[in-house]
């Protein structure tokens, strides 16, 4: 089954559009989601990095301030035992960094200067503890930004001793700047961290410690300001699991049973998502973070992405952790995707329609061409009609087609003429119904039916009942028998039976299905009859000539017969000689002896002829002189001729050498002469002669034996009557002569003679040498 060009074009153009759109959408569908997820992770990672940087930037100045103050005190630039100077230095430091909650200095004697931000009555408050042995005073001073005293007060109840505080002890023990773990500042109840730097007095001793309190709730504010998707959060987890910074500062603190505030551990953190994401970090009471870790987790049916950054530094063992809802990033895409699908569908539909229109536009001329071709093939349109607007290729094809059609019509016409005028009977037969589709004049003449009568008849109606099966074979569609050629009997319209040579060919179409049978028919009744007779003759002949044993017997017999014949001839001749020597011998005696000798010779000739006839197959054709042969054969029958009072003459003229089996030709001549002698004798007329004439006709010599006998009775079939009525002769009739001549490439026929009598003519090939000259 071939595909229609139109369908192919439609499917091709529309389908390809659709597939292209689908491919683009699908690919963007996949890649965009992946890209966004990657982006989310990058974003989280950036958040972590930012937070780290921010924390460093936030805490960095404190270190500078603490260490500067400590160094000033240490180098006695500022007398650390003069609280007023110290206060001024610390106040300056506090002003520099807004994240500083307070800056202070404690010494080994328990003295303490502490400048901190205050809510009132002034923005800054200083606490100075002076010790002198057992005596100690605590003074509280509130100042404005310009260091002007707003209020001054004593606090007799103060029991604060810096030397007992953890920041003091740790810095003193380590003799270096330390960071404390974050904790909740007692005074402000805000989470913070303290940095302590020792003021050294020699290699192992200290004079005091400078400390800076930094409130880290600012970091939480910073985290709260970060936008990580819609619901993303970043937080800082201390290595002990405390969550020290979180966008929601309220989550950070909790109050113990004894009323002290502390950080909330990640394991009990109120943000459940954070808990789910990061509580797993805690192992053995410490956060284990190797490096930046990006991961994905599911909480409450939602997918999240998270990142955990490694600790900021040894001194600041903080881990930044962030999570975000995956859908915050992909949601837009997912929404977008639906829109995309709709757009793709619309685009596909529009391009599909456009593709169909285009296909139709391209196909239209082709369809028109196809319709036109169909009309032409049905004969409803002339191939010469102008071609509608179409393609170059189709125009060329049309050109070829037109030529083909013209050629085909011509062929059909020729075939039709051949069919109609054929000298053989011809018929087209439908292979299914066996009905005649078409017959020619000759077919009608052979069968005796008219063309209109044959229309509607089948071949079986014409065939002889016993031969009907013959044609059925030709209908066989298995491919084995598509051609038959055989002789069958047919019954003519008038009921007479004829022999017909029937040839049937099955005409197949290109798929190998039978279109029709073409049947050719010849009336071979005449030929068949003589053929039957010839077959009969051949049977007899083959009995004579083909039988080897008989041939041998005949050859032996011929030899045996020749011996006595030779003796007879010799004795007859001897007797003749004796008679000739004798005086007064009876002349009849001489004639009789001569007859004996001649008849013996004739018997010898017969034997020779018989033998050569038996050996005809191996008979050698040779070039010989025909007049000489005629003379010799005439001599053979001269006795008979004389007895019948018949004069035999030859009028041969100049002849070329001929080529045939000499003895066989002699045999034929003897036969014809003998027949002629008998015919003349029988007639008993006055004119008693036989003339042998010959003339050259092309490559053959025609030899005629004409007698003046009664002629041949037209009712007698000369050549088919094998049984001769004659008692004498070779016993080989005209039919044998004809057969002998046929084997020598010649023919024998009878011609009537106007003046009466009979003429038998036979042909012999001229020798090749004779032809060239």
């Amino acid at each position, binding site marked *: 089954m071939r595909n229609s060009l139109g369908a192919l074009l439609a499917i091709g153009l529309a389908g390809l559009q659709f597939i292209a759109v689908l491919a683009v959408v699908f690919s963007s569908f996949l890649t965009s989601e992946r890209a966004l997820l990657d982006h989310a992770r990058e974003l989280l990672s950036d958040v972590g990095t930012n937070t780290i940087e921010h924390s460093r930037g936030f805490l960095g100045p404190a270190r500078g301030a603490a260490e500067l103050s400590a160094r000033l005190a240490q180098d006695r630039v500022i007398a650390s035992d003069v609280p007023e100077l110290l206060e001024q230095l610390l106040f300056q430091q506090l002003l520099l960094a807004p994240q500083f909650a307070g800056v202070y200095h404690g010494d080994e004697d328990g003295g303490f200067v502490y400048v901190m931000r205050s809510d009132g009555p002034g923005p800054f408050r200083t606490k100075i503890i002076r010790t002198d042995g057992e005596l100690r005073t605590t003074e509280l001073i509130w100042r404005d930004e310009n260091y002007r005293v707003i209020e001054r007060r004593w606090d007799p109840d103060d029991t604060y001793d810096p030397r007992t505080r953890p920041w003091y002890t740790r810095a003193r023990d380590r003799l270096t700047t330390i960071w404390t773990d974050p904790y909740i500042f007692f005074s402000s109840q805000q989470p913070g961290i303290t940095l302590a730097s020792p003021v050294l007095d020699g290699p192992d001793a200290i004079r005091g410690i400078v400390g800076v309190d930094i409130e880290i709730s600012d970091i939480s504010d910073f985290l709260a300001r970060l936008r990580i998707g819609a619901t993303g959060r970043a937080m800082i987890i201390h290595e002990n699991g405390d969550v020290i910074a979180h966008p929601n500062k309220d989550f950070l603190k909790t109050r113990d049973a004894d009323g002290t505030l502390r950080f909330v551990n990640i394991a009990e953190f109120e943000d459940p998502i954070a808990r789910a994401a990061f509580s797993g970090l805690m192992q053995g009471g410490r956060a284990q973070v190797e490096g930046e870790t990006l991961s994905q987790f599911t909480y409450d049916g939602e997918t999240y992405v998270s990142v955990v950054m490694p600790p900021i530094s040894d001194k600041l063992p903080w881990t930044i952790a962030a999570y975000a809802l995956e859908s915050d990033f992909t949601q837009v895409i997912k929404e977008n995707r639906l829109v995309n699908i709709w757009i793709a569908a619309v685009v596909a539909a529009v391009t599909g329609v456009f593709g169909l229109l285009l296909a139709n536009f391209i196909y239209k001329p082709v369809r028109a061409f196809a319709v036109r071709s169909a009309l032409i093939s049905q004969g409803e349109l002339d191939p010469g009609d102008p071609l509608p607007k179409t393609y170059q290729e189709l125009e060329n094809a049309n050109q070829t087609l037109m030529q083909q059609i013209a050629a085909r019509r011509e062929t059909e016409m020729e075939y039709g003429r051949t069919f109609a005028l054929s000298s053989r009977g011809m018929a087209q037969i439908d292979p299914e119904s066996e009905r005649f589709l078409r017959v020619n004049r000759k077919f009608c003449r052979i069968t005796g039916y008219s063309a209109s009568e044959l229309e509607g008849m089948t071949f079986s109606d014409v065939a002889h009942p016993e031969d009907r099966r013959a044609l059925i074979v030709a209908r066989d569609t298995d491919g084995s028998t598509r051609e038959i050629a055989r002789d069958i009997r047919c019954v003519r319209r008038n009921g007479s039976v004829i022999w017909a040579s029937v040839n049937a060919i099955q005409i197949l179409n290109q798929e190998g299905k039978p279109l029709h049978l073409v049947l050719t028919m010849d009336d071979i009744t005449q030929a068949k009859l003589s053929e039957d007779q010839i077959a009969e003759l051949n049977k007899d002949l083959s009995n004579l000539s083909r039988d080897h044993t008989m041939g041998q017997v005949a050859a032996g017999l*011929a030899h045996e017969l020749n011996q*006595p*014949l*030779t003796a007879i001839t010799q*004795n007859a001749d001897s007797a003749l000689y004796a008679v000739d020597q004798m005086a007064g011998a009876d002349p009849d005696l001489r004639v009789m002896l001569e007859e004996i000798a001649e008849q013996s010779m004739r018997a010898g000739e017969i034997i*020779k002829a018989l033998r050569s006839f038996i050996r005809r197959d191996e008979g050698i054709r040779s070039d010989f002189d025909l007049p000489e042969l005629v003379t010799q054969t005439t001599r053979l029958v001269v006795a008979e001729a004389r007895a019948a009072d018949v004069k035999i003459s030859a009028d041969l003229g100049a002849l070329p050498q001929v080529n045939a089996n000499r003895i066989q030709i002699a045999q034929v001549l003897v036969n014809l002469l003998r027949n002629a002698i008998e015919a003349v004798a029988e007639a008993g007329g006055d004119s008693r002669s036989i003339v042998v004439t010959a003339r050259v006709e092309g490559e053959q010599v025609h030899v005629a034996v004409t007698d003046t006998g009664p002629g041949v009775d037209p009712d007698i079939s000369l050549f088919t009557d094998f049984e001769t009525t004659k008692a004498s002769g070779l016993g080989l009739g005209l039919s044998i002569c004809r057969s002998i001549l046929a084997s020598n490439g010649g023919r024998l026929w009878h011609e009537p003679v106007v003046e009466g009598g009979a003429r038998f003519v036979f042909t012999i090939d001229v020798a090749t040498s004779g032809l060239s000259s």
Partner: protein
Amino acid sequence: MEKQGDGLRMNDQRPPVYVVDDDQDIRTSLSRGLGQRGFDVECFASAAEFLDAYDGEQAACLILDYGMPEMNGLELQALLTRRDLPLAVIFITGHGGVPESVQAMKGGAVDFLEKPFRQSVLVERIEAAFDIARAHQSARGLRNDIHARIGRLTAREKEIVDHILAHPAEASSKDIANSLGISPRTIDHHRARILEKLQVRSVVELVDLVGKLKQSEPGRT
């Protein structure tokens, strides 16, 4: 063996006719008919019988049956040719065939007659055969004579004859003496002996004699 004549004998006028045929009736009729006509006929039933009786010298006509048991006509003909016998052969045959007749004629037969045949034809052939046989015999006689004469020459004389035959233009005594390295006088002496022995009068006749010999050599046609 049966004899219709008086046995093999010399006949100055007519050579004898020998008939070799295995058929008694043929032999009888031929013998009778030919005898009547004055021919000296002798018949044999087989080739072997004939060979036993024939002396090999007598010129004769041999009427030979083609198809015989044991040695057939053709074989006998070939044998006669090999022996250079002065016989002219006329084949008679009851089988008759172009190939056989061609072979027989090639072998030098006078004719090939198919049985039966008229006596007149045979007589005619016999006369022809006699001529051939006589010619054959005289050629053979001459040949034998020349051979005999040459046989009388000494080795030196033969050498001189050979030289004369090879270089007929240099036949003077001087030329021969130069080429054979002997004196012209000796050559003269030899030549006289040679001419005498060969019964010729001149060197020209000598060359002619040897030419005749070569021409009549059997097998040459």
